[in-house]
């Protein structure tokens, strides 16, 4: 359904996205994961035909995203992270307007607005950020387009609404609709997506099923020691140090766990927890600063993604 081939977008000298190639199948929920500045929004805007690719190609339903944008848009619904609405309209009038632009019935939004407890009589400019985002959620789900494209869709939603949003995603998925969503909310991706693409500094560094990313090959180990571990304690070929702060260590182990256990046996351990890693662990691993040895600290996410400040949204 969605296919990008070496998709590249540069803003003059600034990096946008570089050689992004991926394919999203019909009925799939695909997550685009990355911190701010990694190129998620650029990718989505290119898919929507708002940005013209510098190189490469993006197609949806086999149609070119730039050249055939209106035809592509007939079959998709979009939700941005901070959608801007016409502040002078009521939320109901705004949704009716959007419904008409999408060639839907004018009141297509009503049932969903009731479900999300959105007051259609309030002027948009008087709504909180969360309620404005609710308008976006209602707008995205009010039709039955086969593709939903969402850019950080839960931004501003309270936890209850986030749960409702996840339910809407599940319903859309059960109807066989395809969903392409970007996020830096790892839990959201973990709960909703079949596959995940991880963007780093504009490049797609990994595409995998969530199950494989979280799979049996990797284990997460949290250690609390009596005293800080001597240097190089955890330097093993199959061990990555996610975080090492004083007496606490967060490690990722691939494959055989025994070499690490032998090292740990020489230390006084106060607590140990071994678990299959969540997406966050994997995410941190991808975003560790380039060149940082595995013996140390965890890189800050945003800084790792755009160390020179050249990142884009």
């Amino acid at each position, binding site marked *: 359904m969605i296919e990008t081939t070496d998709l590249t977008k540069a803003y003059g000298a600034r990096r946008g996205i570089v050689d992004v190639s991926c394919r999203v199948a019909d009925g799939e929920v695909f997550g685009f994961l990355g911190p701010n500045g990694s190129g998620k929004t650029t990718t989505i*805007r290119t898919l*929507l*035909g*708002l*940005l*013209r690719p510098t190189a490469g190609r993006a197609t949806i339903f086999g149609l070119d995203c730039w050249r055939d*944008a*209106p*035809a592509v*848009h*007939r079959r*998709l*619904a*979009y939700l*941005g992270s*901070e*959608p*801007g*609405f*016409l*502040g002078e309209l009521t939320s109901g009038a705004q949704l009716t307007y*959007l419904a008409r*632009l*999408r*060639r839907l019935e004018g009141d297509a939004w009503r049932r969903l607005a009731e479900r999300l407890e959105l007051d259609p009589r309030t002027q948009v400019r008087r709504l909180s950020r969360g309620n404005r985002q609710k308008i976006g959620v209602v*707008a995205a789900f009010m039709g039955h387009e086969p593709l939903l*494209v969402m850019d950080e869709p839960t931004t501003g939603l309270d936890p209850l609404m986030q749960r409702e949003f996840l339910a809407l995603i599940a319903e859309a998925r059960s109807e066989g609709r395809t969903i392409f969503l970007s996020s830096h909310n790892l839990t959201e991706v973990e709960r909703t997506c079949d596959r995940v693409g991880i963007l780093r500094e504009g490049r797609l560094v990994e595409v995998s099923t969530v199950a494989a990313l979280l799979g049996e090959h990797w284990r997460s180990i949290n250690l609390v020691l009596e005293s800080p571990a001597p240097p190089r304690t955890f330097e093993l070929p199959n061990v990555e140090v996610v975080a090492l702060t004083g007496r606490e260590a967060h490690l990722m182990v691939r494959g055989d766990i025994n070499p690490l256990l032998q090292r740990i046996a020489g230390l006084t351990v106060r607590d140990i927890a071994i678990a299959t890693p969540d997406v966050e662990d994997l995410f941190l691993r991808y975003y560790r600063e380039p060149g940082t040895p595995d013996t140390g600290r965890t890189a800050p996410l945003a800084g790792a993604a755009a160390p020179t400040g050249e990142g884009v949204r």
Partner: protein
Amino acid sequence: MVIWIACIAVAYGATIAIFWPIMRDNSALLTQYMAVFPKGFLAAFGMEGSLADPGVFFATYVGSWLWPVLSAVAAVVLATRPVAVDLERGFLELALSTPFSRLRYLLTAVGVQAVAMAALAFVTVFGFTAAATVAGAPYDMARMLLVAVLAWAFGCAIAGVTSLLSVITLSRGVTAGIVTAVLLAMYLADIVSKMQPDLAGLDYLSAMHYFRAIPIVDEGTVPLAETSLFAVVAAAGWGLAVLLFRRRDLAA
């Protein structure tokens, strides 16, 4: 906003218009007073004769400054809204992620600009004319209709160029700044050209040169060339704006 501009135009125009009898009764005194100003300076602001003259009266109080300023404000409000403003507030990407094409989107906006500018021009001209007529000024409605058409074309020319600037800069602030600077430069060119005979050629660079109401009101001259010129500028501005809008990146 455009409705507010129309209200200002009518209120100001009507208020000024009812003073016409005072201008008529004190024409000699006013002419004597105005004599202290350089002729070219007065001409640049439409005062090319007695203020009791209907054409001069209209040109001085509406044609030479009220309409150019109001139409420029309206043009900035109307022409930056669909592109720069909607992009800045994040609505544009929602609207353009629907089956509504870029072409239809901007052509609709151009249509709205043309209609709104027509309404504003007619309200401004006929608001003034109606009040002046009630006050006893001898305005010919057919001639004022020609003035309104010219004013509409003038406003459309500004709107067309403003639309193009809005698509180029994607910023209401920058667009408004450029439009204001160009309008002031045109005023300046108009004034300088009238005060310095050796710089008379500058006059042709100013839109004010082509927006002269006096010959229409006083002599019934049909401003075909001027209206056509403004229409061509408007069409070129809008046309280029549409072409560029279809091809450029749209991201805040």
